[in-house]
């Protein structure tokens, strides 16, 4: 492995000086091994209040039924399914980073995969709670499973995309959980071997007795690779099936074949935005600047602009196909979306998802932390509007003009949504506290080949092309705002 050196033109994946293997461990375990700081407590308190609101609003829904939501006879799906699809979509980036980027050997995934996978799991939990609570009688949720009906021998209908969804989401959740936890084992063992007393006992149980022998690592790598191999089509299938909940219906605006690829691109788009939202804050608060570098941020921004543009093409294609189909209902559905009473939702979606991310074409914006964070929030908002537009504007004016209505969310709708965000952040903050937010073993792998200090050593040894070395130094000084070497340079 040491014989392998990366091209000097590649940006370093670990910056900072004197990064040793034990320094990696020390740096990453700071939040786990110490009492949390003020920022964490403030964040946790706010999120926990949100989570409490969620418990209250969901309990309210369970007690009084979904009549407490703003749904009506025409609009039977609104904020619930919007929230569900939004959360599932957010979850997709975690699997994309951990699986697809592993298959493509993108080493920059190593320092962001752990927290992105955790985000996946928490987002899917939020999505699943929407599914359970929108059932109206959540204690009957097992009716969706292939169990014989007590009243006869009727089985679930496997021709229904809603049943496919049950299988897809539960498989996705459990496989993501297994993938995440298997990857955590070596890092939990590291915490275990540094801890004492009760902490050691707890982490010892959680570590499954990991010892890092050759055979363990050999099989571990194969297991990770195969899990990545099966998770890649899995993540594509999950959002494909979510989109089929709509696409296999006959509702104009939903009944389109473009939905699966369009939903998958949108999912990756929103997921990366959420990863960006979380990590830009986490890297600052937890001093992970050396491990989550400007290069990571820029790479994610590049994926955001790519998937955002794919989503934009999908929006335009939908409009074109509606016109080209010659079906007047289809044409009306889209005309109504663009210029009907929900025009503001449609244009919010267009602005947030298609227009604003285009400023990421400028490297200055892509490498600005403030801009990246603001745009990630805008994308999150835009993607929520996308699902709202698809669901509510397709339903609210149906075939019978006398039943045309608007949808107004009730306070319960709002509380469930705001509360689910609180739940998500509560879980994420707890995760940051008890488990390493960066995969230590995987970052250690990069130290000898892709770190700034390894590259500086090569430059000092004079084994690289001087022109390329100058380019490397220059781009680092220009764009990486955190490297101490750069700070020194600025001082001088």
């Amino acid at each position: 492995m040491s014989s392998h050196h990366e091209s000097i033109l590649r940006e370093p994946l670990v910056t900072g000086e004197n990064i040793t293997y034990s320094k990696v461990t020390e740096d990453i375990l700071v939040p786990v091994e110490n009492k949390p700081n003020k920022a964490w407590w403030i964040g946790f308190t706010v999120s926990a209040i949100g989570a409490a609101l969620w418990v209250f609003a969901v309990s309210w829904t369970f007690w009084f039924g979904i009549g407490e939501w703003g749904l009506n006879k025409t609009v039977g799906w609104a904020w619930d399914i919007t929230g569900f699809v939004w959360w599932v979509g957010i979850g997709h980036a975690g699997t994309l980073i951990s699986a697809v980027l592993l298959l493509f050997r993108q080493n920059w995934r190593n320092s962001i995969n752990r927290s992105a996978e955790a985000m996946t799991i928490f987002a899917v939990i939020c999505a699943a709670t929407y599914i359970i609570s929108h059932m109206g009688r959540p204690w009957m949720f097992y009716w969706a499973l292939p169990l014989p009906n007590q009243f006869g021998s009727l089985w679930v209908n496997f021709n229904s995309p809603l049943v496919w969804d049950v299988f897809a989401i539960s498989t996705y959740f459990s496989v993501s959980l297994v993938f995440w936890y298997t990857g955590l084992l070596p890092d939990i063992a590291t915490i275990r071997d540094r801890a004492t007393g009760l902490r050691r006992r707890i982490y010892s149980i959680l570590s499954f007795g990991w010892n890092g022998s050759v055979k363990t690592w050999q099989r571990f790598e194969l297991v990770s690779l195969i899990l990545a191999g099966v998770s890649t089509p899995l993540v594509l299938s999950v959002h494909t099936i979510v989109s089929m909940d709509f696409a296999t219906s006959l509702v104009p605006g939903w009944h389109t074949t473009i939905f699966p690829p369009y939903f998958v691109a949108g999912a990756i788009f929103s997921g990366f935005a959420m990863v960006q939202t979380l990590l830009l804050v986490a890297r600052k608060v937890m001093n992970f600047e050396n491990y989550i570098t400007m290069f990571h941020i820029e790479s994610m921004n590049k994926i955001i602009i790519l998937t955002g543009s794919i989503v934009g093409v999908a929006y335009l294609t939908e409009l074109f196909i509606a016109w080209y189909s010659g079906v007047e209902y289809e044409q009306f559905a889209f005309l109504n979306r663009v210029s009907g009473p929900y025009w503001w939702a449609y244009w919010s979606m267009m602005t947030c998802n298609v227009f604003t991310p285009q400023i990421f074409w400028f490297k200055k914006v892509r490498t600005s932390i403030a801009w990246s964070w603001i745009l990630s929030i805008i994308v999150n908002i835009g993607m929520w509007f996308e699902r709202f537009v698809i669901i509510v504007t397709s339903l609210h004016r149906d075939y019978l003009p006398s039943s045309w209505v608007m949808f107004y969310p009730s306070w319960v709708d709002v509380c469930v949504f705001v509360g689910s965000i609180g739940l998500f952040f509560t879980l994420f903050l707890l995760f940051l506290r008890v488990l390493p937010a960066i995969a230590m073993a995987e970052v250690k792998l990069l130290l000898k080949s892709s770190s700034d200090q390894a590259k500086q050593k090569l430059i000092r040894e004079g084994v690289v092309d001087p022109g390329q070395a100058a380019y490397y130094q220059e781009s680092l000084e220009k764009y990486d705002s955190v490297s101490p070497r750069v700070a020194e340079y600025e001082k001088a």
Partner: protein
Amino acid sequence: MSNIKYILGHFADPDDLMHGIDKLQEGNVKIYDVYTPMPIHGIEDKLGIKRSRLGKVAFCFGLTGTITAITMIWYMLVYDWPMNIGGKPHFAFPDFVPIMFELTVLFCAFGMVGTYFFVNHLAPGRAPRVMDLRATNDRFVVAIDAKENPYHDKIDNILKEAGAVEVKHNERKYVSYE
């Protein structure tokens, strides 16, 4: 002879570790195992460890999932309680593909990871068989069975010459977790 059970050579760098393994093998010293904080690529070939067969295991579990799904759906929708849905065929194969795929992935992932845990004796609460606490942090540790390999001084010298930062003689096999 002493009570020494294992000789541990600590390396601070994976390249030194690989060099140390070469030197030990040249000196005909049998290596018991190597403990590292991260995977070392190419070490399996050096130690003569065979390719893992977990890939085949994963395939078999995946196939089991596919067969389970199609059998289950066929039994429920075609054999046990066929429903007339607009006169369409009961065995609507394209509709069954999504669930067949999901169960393939589910069985494959759980079967493979379960097998991995089983063969490596990984289970919640299992006492960690750790020879040195730093092997999960920043040390790359070669363990040599002291009973099988005589001339401990020679082994110590080989390790030190190869760049070991520390050589330990352990009287117990594993670090005790009280």
